[in-house]
C-alpha cells in the first residue's frame, strides 16, 4: 500500500490497540479505576509479560496513562482518546450518509443544480 506517507505510528496505534479483545477489556477495567499491571495480570489467564505488552500497546495509542505510586505503576484509562476514536468512526459514517442522500437527489433530478 502507498497510503502510509503521512502516517504517524502513534495515531495508527489507536485503532490497532482497540482491535484486540483483551486490550479492550483491560481498557474497560482501567477506565473505571486505576490498576497496577500486577492487579491486571491476575485478572487474565495470560502471563504478566503478555499483560504488560497489552498495556504498552494501549499506552502508545494514548488510551491509558501510567503513574507511579510508590513502588508500583498504576494504569488509568483516558476517556478523551477513546471518545476521539468513536467520534471519528461516527463522523465518517455521517459524512457518507450525507453524500448518499445527495446522490439520491441527483438521481431524482439529473439536470438541476443542487439547491445552494
Amino acid at each position, binding site marked *: 500500500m502507498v497510503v502510509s506517507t503521512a502516517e*504517524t505510528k502513534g495515531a495508527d496505534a489507536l485503532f490497532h490497540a482497540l482491535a484486540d479483545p483483551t486490550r479492550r477489556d483491560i481498557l474497560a477495567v482501567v477506565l473505571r479505576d486505576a490498576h497496577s499491571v500486577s492487579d491486571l495480570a491476575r485478572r487474565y489467564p495470560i502471563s504478566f509479560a503478555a499483560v504488560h505488552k497489552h498495556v504498552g500497546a494501549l499506552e502508545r495509542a494514548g488510551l491509558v496513562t501510567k503513574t507511579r505510586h510508590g513502588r508500583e505503576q498504576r494504569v488509568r484509562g483516558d476517556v478523551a482518546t477513546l471518545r476521539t476514536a468513536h467520534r471519528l468512526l461516527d463522523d465518517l459514517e455521517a459524512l457518507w450518509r450525507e453524500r448518499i442522500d445527495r446522490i439520491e437527489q441527483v438521481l431524482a433530478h439529473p439536470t438541476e443544480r443542487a439547491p*445552494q
Partner: protein
Amino acid sequence: MTVTSVVKDADARTMTITARFDAPIGRVWQVWSDPRQLERWWGPPTYPATVTEHNLAPGGTVAYTMTGPEGDRHRGWWRVRAVDPPHTLEFEDGFADADGNPSRDTLTGVIRVALSELAGGGTQMDITTAWASVEAMEQILAMGTEAGMTAAVGQIDELLSLPARA
C-alpha cells in the same frame, strides 16, 4: 431507506457503507462518471465542488476545488487505481496545495466503489473507505462535512486574530 448497512472495521481502518437506489446501474454510475453530477454531491452544500479535471482511467486524475461561503478554496484530487464501468471504481483520495499540486503527504486514503444490479431494476452501491491514519481521517472529515469545514475555517480565523508570539 437508502443506506442498508454500515460496517466499521477499526483494525483494518475501513468502513463499508451499503446503499440501494431505485435506479438502473448505468444511471447510478453517472453520479461518478459525469463531473457535473459528481460536483453536486461530493462536497457539503455550502462548500460546493467544482470538478476541473476528470479522467476515470487507470492512473488518471480527478481534481476539484471546494469553495466556501467566505470565498475560501480547498483543493482535492483523486488518483484512479482501477475502473470497470459501470461496476467498480477504486481511487486514492487526497488534498492539494493552493496551486492544485497534489502532494503524496496529503494522501488520506483509498475509496472503492462497487455497483451491482438488484432484482427489480435497482442498484446496490458498496463504498469501502480505507484511511491512512487517524490524522488522515480527521482531515477527510474536516474537508468533507459542513461542520468540519466551518470549524477548519474558524480555526484559521482564530489563528489570524491571535497576536504573534515572540
